[in-house]
């Protein structure tokens, strides 16, 4: 706990506004004073941490899923490894990486990426496996090559399953990224830790926590919109 004490923003119960002195739930004056130096940077860092993790996780999962889909023998072992990584508690995984990669963003990203693998891998494989045999037959009949079949038939038809996986991965990554504040002073977990150390300053906990939840919901909503744009046929 005391690991993360200090930092630039300490609500001053002694000389702050009356709301701060009584540790109020929603001190507007504190929020407007510290949005710029505390909450906004934490939010931006949180978005960065999550985007990088999901981006790398998606790239890895896509490659692994293509391997698992083409070579069925690879599917069970990849699934078991992903399942194994997913089971390790986030706080423990962060700490287990510290002796190797230190208290760095790399540590956090390795852990966050590991957690996306299971969800994304399973969903991409399920999406590709769920493509109807008729569609593949039709593609062959039209003289599509293997690559054309993949890009123009299999991948588009797998989009709903892939987006479903991405939604879960993005939301859970945003959630787990709050725990990253245990190892690096970044993300929305950081102001929460500081507030916990400052006599549980409620406004800061509520604001940072609320931002994390709002971020997850907004990201989820954006992915739903993206799926609609990518699969216009599903609305017909």
């Amino acid at each position: 706990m005391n690991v993360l004490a200090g930092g630039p923003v300490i609500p001053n119960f002694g000389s702050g506004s009356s709301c701060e002195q009584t540790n109020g739930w929603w001190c507007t004056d504190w929020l407007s004073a510290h949005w710029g130096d505390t909450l906004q940077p934490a939010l931006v860092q949180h978005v960065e941490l999550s985007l990088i993790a999901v981006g790398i996780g998606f790239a890895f999962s896509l490659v692994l899923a293509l391997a698992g889909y083409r070579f069925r023998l690879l599917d069970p072992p990849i699934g078991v490894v992903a399942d194994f990584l997913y089971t390790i508690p986030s706080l423990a995984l962060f700490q287990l990486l510290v002796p190797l990669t230190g208290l760095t963003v790399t540590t956090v990203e390795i852990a966050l990426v590991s957690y996306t693998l299971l969800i994304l891998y399973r969903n991409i494989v399920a999406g590709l496996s769920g493509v109807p045999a008729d569609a593949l037959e039709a593609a062959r009949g039209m003289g599509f090559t293997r690559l054309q079949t993949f890009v123009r038939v299999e991948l588009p038809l797998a989009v709903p399953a892939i987006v479903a996986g991405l939604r879960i991965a993005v939301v859970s990554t945003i959630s787990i990224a709050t725990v990253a504040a245990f190892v690096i002073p970044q993300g929305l977990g950081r102001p929460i830790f500081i507030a916990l150390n400052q006599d549980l300053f409620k406004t800061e906990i509520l604001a940072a926590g609320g931002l994390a939840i709002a971020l997850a919901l907004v990201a989820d909503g954006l992915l739903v919109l993206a799926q609609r744009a990518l699969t216009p046929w599903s609305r017909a």
Partner: protein
Amino acid sequence: MIVADQFQPSTFVDAFRFIGDHGHLLLQKTGEHLELSLASLGIALVLALPLGLWLGHLRRGLFVALGVSSVGRALPSLVLIAFGLTVLGVGFWNNTAALTILAIPSILTNAYFGIAGVDRDVVEAARGMGLSERQILLRVELPLGLPLVLAGIRIATIFVLATATIAAIAGGGGLGEIIVNQASYGLEGVVGASFCVSALTLLAALLLGLVARAASPRHLSDT
């Protein structure tokens, strides 16, 4: 603060030495960890399982099941524990409440979809044979939907065991108390406890996986 900014794989050796030297402490913390986790899981099961099964049987409340699962996923465990800490204060019940809330979504949603996904013809056949609604749920739908229901409980268990680690910041005790207390236990203690809690979750996942396999209907598991 002890900073490990460079590559120190020897810490793993020290971590295993720590595990060897502090067996008693680790056992005690594991006990606390299990106590907190099982209490939360128990409450979540009592609240969510009957509701999920019944809603699934009625095939109503899809909106509830989906809403609970997506809101549940968006709730960061750290945020929930911090909220609980401000509202309920430090201690066992704050953490139990937070962990219970985190365990409910996957239990509820999987129970709902497990039961609602059972073939309607089978349910109609059972109704035609004169089974009561309760009998239909317990003797027909539950056995058929059991794999999915158990998968939800497995996910919730892993999630609760993992989050109980974070609960240490709110006085929850357990193995997380060592992990968040590097000042007292050193990095080797932190890494050692991380190994222990990982082993605990993996063991739980494995056990529940075996239970799920044993409980799934034979003729279905063959396909």
